[in-house]
């Protein structure tokens, strides 16, 4: 391996890693606020890419139908839980959040589609269509077992991923997509050609992580999310609703995953089931950060990207074997570094 190749591989790895980093940050966000290890973020990223590709091809993406179905399900579940608890006065709110807003988003996207919008608008539409999915899934799948153990939530999360893969095939079909590059610029740095897309990925990752940091440190909502992450019961006593914090976390997380999907679509061909590996690798990064640290997760994800890039140069067949085998030493290191209380364990 010459230094040229190493430089190209490193740049490639950083770009892939930056995409993973966005998903990893979302994963950490969800874990700290809701204790759910949300494996399906990778699927959300892949679905965004597929949505954008459909919009580019002037087809209305399957995402619309998916959101409508999930919204109806979530509304039914919410209504039945309101009925059980005798809280019918909250019905209008529930209808607004779980039915009207998601349907309005889909409707708006459908109308906008007819006007043959430019790329920038299509990007926004893709993100708009994708963001309701995770919060709706949260309501349907995780809210009823919000008090379960981390392990139960993880098991459910893995099952949910498989459901989403099936839905992905149903709504998007088996064809892989590769979208137009967002920019065709390229630049040379120290003798190595860097494509504009690569730059864009890294910049976007930096900008979105920065925005998240500002959100957490300078807004009340951001602080309430942090409070929920630190102490659920305590923040509840301060008037913060964990369910609401969870919804916000899912919205933000899916936005990050959506952006990463848009960024990766021009670089790699994305299939309905590509999300699993994206999600898992992001997740490896998140574990490097101990599932709690955002910078740690980002650094870990970039590390995974670089590792994968070099591993696929050495042996493209075994790159995934290498990446996942390396997770074990990382886990051991993290497990030793974190203290566990035994009281958490279910008897």
């Amino acid at each position, binding site marked *: 391996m010459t230094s040229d190749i190493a430089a190209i591989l490193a740049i490639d790895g950083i770009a892939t890693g930056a995409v993973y980093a966005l998903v990893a940050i979302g994963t950490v966000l969800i874990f700290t606020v809701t204790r759910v*290890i949300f494996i399906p973020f990778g699927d959300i990223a892949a679905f965004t890419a597929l949505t954008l590709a459909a919009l580019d091809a002037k087809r209305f993406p399957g995402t619309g139908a998916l959101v409508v179905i999930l919204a109806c399900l979530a509304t039914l579940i919410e209504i039945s839980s309101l009925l059980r608890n005798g809280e019918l006065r909250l019905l209008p709110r529930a209808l607004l959040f779980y039915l009207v807003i998601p349907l309005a988003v889909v409707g708006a996207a459908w109308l906008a589609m007819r006007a043959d919008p430019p790329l920038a608008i299509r990007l926004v539409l893709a993100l708009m269509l994708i963001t309701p999915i995770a919060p709706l899934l949260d309501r349907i*799948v995780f809210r*009823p*077992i919000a008090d379960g153990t*981390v*392990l*139960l939530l*993880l*098991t*459910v999360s*893995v*099952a*949910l991923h*498989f*459901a989403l*893969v*099936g*839905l992905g*095939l*149903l709504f998007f079909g088996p064809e892989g997509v590769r979208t137009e590059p967002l920019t065709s610029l390229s630049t040379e740095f120290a003798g190595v050609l860097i494509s504009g897309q690569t730059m864009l990925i890294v910049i976007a990752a930096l900008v979105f992580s920065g925005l998240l940091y500002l959100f957490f440190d300078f807004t009340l909502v951001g602080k309430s999310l942090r409070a929920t992450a630190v102490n659920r019961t305590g923040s509840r006593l301060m008037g913060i609703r964990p369910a609401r914090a969870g919804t916000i976390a899912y919205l933000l997380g899916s936005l990050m995953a959506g952006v990463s999907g848009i960024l990766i679509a021009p670089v790699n061909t994305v299939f309905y089931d590509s999300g*699993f590996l994206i999600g*898992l690798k992001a997740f*490896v990064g998140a*574990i490097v950060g101990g599932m709690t640290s955002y910078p740690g997760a980002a650094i870990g994800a970039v590390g995974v990207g670089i590792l994968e890039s070099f591993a696929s140069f050495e042996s493209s*067949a*075994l790159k*995934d*074997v290498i990446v*996942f*085998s390396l*997770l*074990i030493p990382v*886990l*051991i290191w*993290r*497990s030793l570094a*974190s203290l*566990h209380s*035994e*009281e*958490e*364990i*279910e*008897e």
Partner: protein
Amino acid sequence: MTRLHVQLAALAAVVCLALAPFVLSPFSITLMNYIGIYSLVAIGLALLTGVGGIVSFGQAAFVGVAAYATAWVSALNGYSPWLGLVFGVALTCSVAAILGIVTLRLQGHFLSLSTVAWGLAIGFLFGNVEGLGRFNGISSIPPISIGSFALVSSAQIYFLIWGIVAVILFLGYNLMDSRLGRAMRALRGGNTLVESLGINAFRIKLVTFVIAAFLASLSGWLYAHMSRFISPGPFDAGMGIEYLMMSMVGGAGSLLGGVVGAAIVTLLKNSVQDYLPLIAKGASGQLEIVAFSALFILFLQWARQGIVPFVARYLPKIQRERPRTAPPLPRRVQPTPGELLLKVDGAERRFGGLVAVNKVSFEVRSGEILAVIGPNGAGKSTMFNCLTGALRVNKGEIVFAGRPITRDAQSRIAKAGIARTFQHVKLRPRMSLLENVMLGTYARTGAGLLAGAFRLNQREEASARHEALMQLERVGLGDKPFELAGNLPLGNQRILEIARALAADPTLLVLDEPAAGLRRQEKLRLAELLRSLRADHLTILIVEHDMEFVMSLVDRIVVLDFGSKLCEGAPAAIRSDERVQEAYLGGVA
């Protein structure tokens, strides 16, 4: 329902299974074969997840290792499938042992995540290794032959598969009811209790993990020689979660649940495949996994316990006989009263900058009750944890019965003869009183894995059962030995912990705030019990908050304040000591 009824039911089930191939259609027999093969993995998972509390997503990888191993031996190299079995089992168990040694010290969800990691890594390996046919797999695997009789048709291999399942269930239930099985069942709920009983938790976890992998390897061997063709598909991550689903649906923690779960999931999957095309033409493949995952999620939301425990609630309880008199377990040589038993010399423990225990020294003499008291934050619990090995002292030395135990692990200290109870009661609520107390006899007994599985441990078991019953009677809980520990009120749970500690035949009994949360009557009963134990020449160290309880009971008191020893003496002297009054009441005017 008596034991005989259970045995008759098992016999009836075996007869039905043996007759089934003569009645069922070939297709149904094939389905039954798959159920049997999956059952083996699910039984292993029930043991690992339900009993041991280790959630594994990677079991399919172990099935794959064995399947590929036997295919490599028999199809690619032309040896007998029986050699494939030996190689497959040996390889799978070695892989599991290595993975276990590396990962089983991980805690909680970290451990489960590691199973996702190696499950995926091994799964990817199958499709990418040159010699294993990559994604095309390995075909023309020979059938298993017994002598010159080849098990080719599904009705022929049926008997082998279900014979193995029946034997495994029999051995498994024997194991659950043995010394090692009880230790496995105690794993769930944390290591602290397990270690305090002289059980090496890591070793028990490793044994459980390898047993589960062994069952998966049997399944993989049968699978390879039944379907005669293997490819990476059936051993991927998706199948890993399906196995987990089987064991959870059946009832994690119930071995029979593994079989029931495998049957339900396989039949359900089959009918989903039959009916979905009628509802949605052309999309059935995708809908299948969606429907399946959705059902699993619903199941986890609404019926986490699983089917077998649910049904078992409606069956009449099994009547058990009270344990009969049996030869006693060997006892320790107790030190002569008045002899120096425990010596703490200059113990110091820091947490960062905080000195929780600061140069504390005291002695315990055989046959006395010594109390360590002090206001909140005095360092009592830290001192206690250092004594029992849950924490290490930074400086100083602890000598027990003439042997330094300063650096020993908890389980070694327990074996040396220090038995403890917990401030927050640690029992296994789903085990009976008798079984909870029998956990205490672990270090005094020695039956291993095979002795437990083949019931070669009966004499020792009878002695342990009898010992446990005697200790229950000694503390006054002897009337309902088969009641579940979780059904006792707190006061009796504390007493039960003492019975468990006594079953270890300790030389020193250490009690961590035994009176905390007890009502007055319960405290009186507890004091009564402790006095009777002293009359039997047992040495007792109590860490306690409740002055009244301590003053009327103990021989000597050590007072701690802000991590240091304030004073030491008889209760009356301590009561009148001004420094103690100041520490407790905040200064005397």
